[in-house]
């Protein structure tokens, strides 16, 4: 049992970038096809990443680099806590600590675009955090434990049947977390935008590469949480979880390609509104049922 947890955590550290990078490559391919283009190779994200590490290193403030290293470290640490099956609430806390390092890294340069992006990033974090915490609460209510491994081992049925509202809320904030349109307000994948590259504006070469890598690790955790809704003690549920992850992933691409950016005010209101309505209602009902 313990050895399998260690193996999963090690696999996470080793494989997450490859899996998520590949998903990212397919994402770009699918997006291109949706727009009637051919699109780049599915390995493009890896080419990009490698290139970033090969570029010359310029910087506006040297403190930025060590903040980014710390950011990567904390993201990976949260992932290890999650995939090794420890406390879900601590995963969320650790993720928000990591996010703080990203914010410090980008504001340390005193650049208008990265400052603008950072403050929007902060709003994004504020929009998402209640839902992330509530997901942990939901799992606790359904299974009486915050421990990821026990959540899986103790549930006879997939927890989604108790937590549909939490799931809806979580998928909603995933769009924000993945920096997808309509909530790509903190940074942008496209040129000619008012934020330039937002949070990552002043990150050059390997710094940007590290941040990209960290985002892949983070996405692996988030998709893992999506999977957790479907996992139960039966190993077959693993297949269901994978399918669910892929469906959610495709849904995010679809949303990305069919919507235009909104203002942060609307994002905040929408995210909190959905959290209160979907997750709050589910929480209330679950409290009554589990009484």
């Amino acid at each position, binding site marked *: 049992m313990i050895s399998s947890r260690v193996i999963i955590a090690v696999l996470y550290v080793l494989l997450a970038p490859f899996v998520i990078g590949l998903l990212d490559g397919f994402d770009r391919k699918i997006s291109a096809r949706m727009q009637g283009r051919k699109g780049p190779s599915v390995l493009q994200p890896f080419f990009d990443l490698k290139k970033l590490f090969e570029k010359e290193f310029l910087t506006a403030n040297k403190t930025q680099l060590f903040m980014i290293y*710390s950011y990567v470290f904390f993201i990976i640490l949260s992932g290890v806590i999650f995939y090794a099956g420890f406390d879900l609430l601590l995963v969320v806390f650790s993720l928000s600590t990591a996010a703080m390092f990203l914010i410090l890294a980008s504001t340390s340069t*005193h650049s*208008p675009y990265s400052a603008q992006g950072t403050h929007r990033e902060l709003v994004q974090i504020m929009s998402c955090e209640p839902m992330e915490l509530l997901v942990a609460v939901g799992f606790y209510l359904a299974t009486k434990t915050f421990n990821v491994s026990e959540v899986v081992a103790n549930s006879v049925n997939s927890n989604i049947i108790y937590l549909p509202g939490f799931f809806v809320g979580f998928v909603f904030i995933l769009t924000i977390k993945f920096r997808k349109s309509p909530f790509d307000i903190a940074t942008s994948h496209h040129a000619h935008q008012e934020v330039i590259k937002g949070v990552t504006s002043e990150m050059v070469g390997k710094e940007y590469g590290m941040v990209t890598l960290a985002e892949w690790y983070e996405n692996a955790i988030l998709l893992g949480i999506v999977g957790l809704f479907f996992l139960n003690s039966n190993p077959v549920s693993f297949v269901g979880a994978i399918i669910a992850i892929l469906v959610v992933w495709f849904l995010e691409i679809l949303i990305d390609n069919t919507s235009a950016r909104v203002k942060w005010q609307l994002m905040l209101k929408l995210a909190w509104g959905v959290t209160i309505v979907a997750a709050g209602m589910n929480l209330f009902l679950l409290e009554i049922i589990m009484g």
Partner: protein
Amino acid sequence: MEMLVTALICLPFLWAILPAVIHNSKCRAFFVYLGCGIVIALSVFTAVQWFLAGGQTLNFDLPYRETFDHVILFGDLFLMCLITYLSFKYKKGVISLLAIVQTLLVAALELFGPEVEELPALRFDWLTFVMILIIGVVGSLIGIYAVGYMHGYHIHHHKELTDRRSFFLAMIFVFFGAMFGLVFSQSLIWMYFFWEITSVTSFLLIGYTRSDEAINNSFKALWMNLLGGCGIAAAIAVGILAWNTVNLYEIIDLAIAAPKALYLLPIGCLAFAALTKSAQFPFSGWLLGAMVAPTPSSALLHSATMVKAGVYLLIRISAAMADNYVGNMVALIGGFTFLAASCFAITVSDGKKVLAYSTISNLGLIVACTGCGYEETIWAAVFLVIFHAVSKSMLFQCVGAIENTTGSRDVEDMQGLMAIFPKLAVILMIGIAGMFLAPFGMLISKWAALKAFIDTSSVYVSTLMVLFICFGSATTMFYWTKWLSKILGASPKEKTRDLTKKNEYISMFFHAIMMVALILGFPWLSEHVLKPLSNDMFGTVDQVISYQNMIIMIVLLVGIFVVPCFNYFLTKGQKAKQVITYMGGANVGDNFNFVSSTGEPKEMHIANFYMDEIMGEKKLFTPAIMISTFIIIVYMIIVIGGAF
């Protein structure tokens, strides 16, 4: 032990005379340092002595109990007269009514009421142990800081004000004495007396500058705290009339044994009193108003003393609040305050005001924890009390020092503080980190509180509280991080002379060291202080936080200190070409100016988000007051109505 405790309570009161009568600045400073030194030494010595003796709960009396009883009775009456005089002097006579009613009620019951069972007046247990260390150490350090600060305050910055430093420093000592008395008392009458002293002293400290604003705010503080005092007076009245006792622990035991009807009434009254003192909504106004006073008194009121008196009492009675109406009221008010105050903290840019709201918000979390009344929440609450006292005191001192040095305490003006005043910036960062970052106090407490609230029996309270905490922690993260992000980075200002006095630095560095020690010593603290504490209150010793999570937290902890340092040295030697930041290619050679449309260089200013339109004070303050008043009134009616 009796002698030590007597000294601890009486000495500060007597020592207060010294700064009051000595007007030579140097000489007075010496006596204040000496006094603070003695208070630190005495409190630590007493605490250690008791700890080494095995940490047994002690019930005892001061020598000459009879005399002290008389002193307290006369003290109560004296305070009443003082309040009446001052309120008429400043044409706010109505306020004196509050004082007169409650004091006469208590005095009359004491003199003419039924005979009260004679029980020891004082008690020393684990919670007292924690509290005297906080008051003794953090409080005295503020005292040390105050000497240097007040010097700069009058000599450099506020020459127009009357120099009443003697009075100010004397009041600080009175505060210590009152707080020590408060945490030792088990007789409600004694507690009431010390409670009133803190109310009056804080009133006097807030009104220190005697400006119109200061006087208005001080009276606001006075009436709110007197209202709280009425709560204690009512509890005393119920205790004497119904069960012939004024002993806090007897009342608590009665309420635990039969948590309904009449037994709950005194607990409700005490909880009400504690809510006013810990500045929960709707009584937050006084703590915000307290900002007009010089920084040391804000630090004193916010961190180690005044507001802690409220949460201390709540922690005391929390076992009697588990899963009943009083507990629900306290929890809801606390949770609501946690969320609302942190929203307001986002919208203000005055550093001290951010701190004020964050104090209220943090106290909200503590209050919510006590209202839940489970072991793990008390564990969390005590943790938060400790962390909050140290880091908030440090933050206030630091903001005060920054204001003295740079002339502004606005967060917006702290851009790049790291580059110009690195020492102050580091202290500020440690303080902020201590307030909200993972593995520090806040995280552990949120973790425990969430878990406990999910298990709370009332579905409504449970759901609401979980939502309050989830949203509150998001908003808390927002305002701290945005402050933190201002400090780092480059500064457009030139380096100037640091005007911070040596003794201010001593106090702040000591706080920083304490903070780090607390963080590193947290497993020990949990094992050797908080476990016996919860054993005291609940008679059980469960491991609140699992061994596994403890390990993770230690990893996080190491991470947060070691990883950035390690990375710092790793990247230090990194060769990097320095470039200027991207401003569409329009920088004028540096990161602070750009070429404007007229071709002239123009300074760029980057401001934080304040979200005034979404959650501003103007928009939400009144609704927040109304909602919280509604909660309090409804629950108090239930509690009072249930008693008859």
